[in-house]
């Protein structure tokens, strides 16, 4: 007779719900993820947001066209210049307003500086989520500070710029701006190379980010993803090239794309985009013409009844404004095509099957701004 020395122990297991957020350091704002876990593996994740909903689309219906510009600052506050630009382009399209040549160049310079500043935060926060706590982001905040100084010079603000106006920009760049920008352009490639030296082939980063949170090309297109999220999945789609606005058809630049659509590719695309922005900045600064920076526009703009949609390649994706006018001084309908809201659509699919630690990373790699998601 044989006796069984070890008994098979079977513990009953069941999936359980873990609530992450809304106030959690990794959620980049107030975002709640209701996850269902099997041990450490994510079975399902339901995104819940709206905690920052301020009703900007409704507020805009009570303001004049010019008065809506500060509201757009408060959408994606890490890229206020880009929001300003997208909005004024839509009003100019609606009302048929021309913009002086010099203002067009200044707008491009601001938008590209803003892209670098925003990507620095995106990459820094992503690395923070990877576990490289605070060191990389402090380097990147240091460099972002230089760009904020430039913005401070032109409009006196460091976060919500309110710089663009319908028909141009609020004021000309001061004399000291061009030399400061030149100095910045000279230093920036060195900063970017420094991060690359630290991080590009970093073994821990590769282990954490490569192959994690894959968004396939088909799904990226199907969920209407845009910006670095779409391009990291191998789709060469950049509004600056696909549907050029302002004067972007005059500049030479490449569109960096990824192959796998994983977290690492999204990170790489952002780094390369900063380099391309530097190329555009150099060309724009070289060709910057003299002249007016604002065309004659009435204080109260009354666009003819109708509708207009204009979109730009903002740092976080395809940012668009859909405006409907009834001929009065305030927009009848003011809709924002928020890229980060739409980029979140496939978050559940990207996270399913990965572990809780990867959840933080995948979420960070999308780079969202909750103020824009919730509006």
């Amino acid at each position: 007779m044989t006796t069984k020395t070890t008994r098979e122990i079977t513990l009953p297991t069941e999936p359980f719900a873990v609530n992450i957020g809304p106030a959690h350091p990794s959620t980049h704002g107030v975002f709640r993820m209701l996850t269902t876990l099997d041990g450490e593996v994510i079975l399902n994740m339901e995104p819940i947001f709206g905690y920052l909903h301020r009703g900007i689309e409704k507020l805009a219906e009570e303001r004049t066209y010019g008065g809506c510009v500060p509201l757009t600052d408060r959408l994606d506050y890490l890229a206020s210049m880009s929001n300003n630009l997208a909005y004024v382009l839509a009003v100019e399209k609606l009302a048929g307003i021309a913009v002086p040549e010099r203002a067009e160049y200044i707008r491009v310079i601001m938008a590209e500086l803003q892209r670098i500043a925003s990507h620095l935060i995106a990459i820094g926060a992503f690395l923070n989520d990877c576990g490289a706590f605070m060191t990389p982001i402090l380097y990147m905040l240091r460099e972002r500070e230089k760009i904020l100084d430039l913005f401070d010079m032109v409009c006196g603000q460091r976060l919500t710029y309110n710089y663009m106006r319908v028909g141009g920009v609020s004021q000309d760049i001061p004399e000291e701006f061009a030399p400061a920008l030149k100095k910045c352009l000279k230093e920036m490639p060195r900063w970017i190379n420094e991060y690359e030296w630290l991080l590009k082939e970093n073994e821990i980063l590769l282990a954490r980010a490569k192959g994690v949170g894959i968004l396939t090309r088909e799904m990226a297109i199907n969920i209407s993803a845009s910006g670095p999220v779409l391009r990291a999945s191998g789709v060469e789609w950049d509004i600056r090239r696909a549907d050029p606005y302002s004067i972007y058809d005059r500049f030479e630049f490449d569109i960096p794309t990824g192959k796998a659509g994983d977290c690492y590719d999204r990170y790489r695309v952002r780094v390369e985009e900063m380099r391309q922005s530097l190329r555009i900045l150099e060309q724009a600064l070289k060709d910057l013409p003299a002249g007016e920076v604002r065309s004659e526009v009435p204080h109260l703009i009354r666009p003819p009844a109708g509708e207009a949609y204009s979109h730009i390649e903002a740092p976080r994706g395809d940012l668009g404004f859909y405006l409907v006018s009834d001929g009065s001084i305030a927009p009848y309908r003011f809709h924002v095509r928020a890229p980060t809201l739409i980029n979140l659509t496939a978050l559940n699919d990207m996270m399913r099957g990965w572990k809780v630690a990867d959840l933080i990373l995948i979420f960070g790699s999308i780079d969202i701004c909750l103020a824009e998601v919730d509006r």
Partner: protein
Amino acid sequence: MTTALSGARIAKKFPEAVIESGADSLLLKAESLLEVAGYLKKTPGLDFDYLNYVTAVDYYDYFEVVYQLASIKHNHGLVLKVRCYDRQNPTLPSVVGIWRGADFQEREIYDLLGISFEGHPNLKRIVLWEGFEGHPLRKEFL
């Protein structure tokens, strides 16, 4: 540059479904939306695989839902519009089955304008809380 695809070309194919066709837009009957949308996505040469955005406007007499489509392959665009005259219980078919990008945006329209989308997998409020009364982007709200 994204070129606008003439609505007239699609209107010829669906004479029953199209109410009005413009230079870059089509006004459709609500019941034909899914049929035309499926055709636009799957037909070679059109390949509207990218739904740029969905939004809705309250015009007092009716709600107009606007779908801006694009094709990544051919880089052309088209705007679809559908009107909904019922203010008490506005309902439209959901396009989530064709373009998943409409998921959150249709929920947002449901939340803020109160238009229900039939066939949406998870139609509930998105930025406001459950139990909120009214739909703020409707003109009569404020």
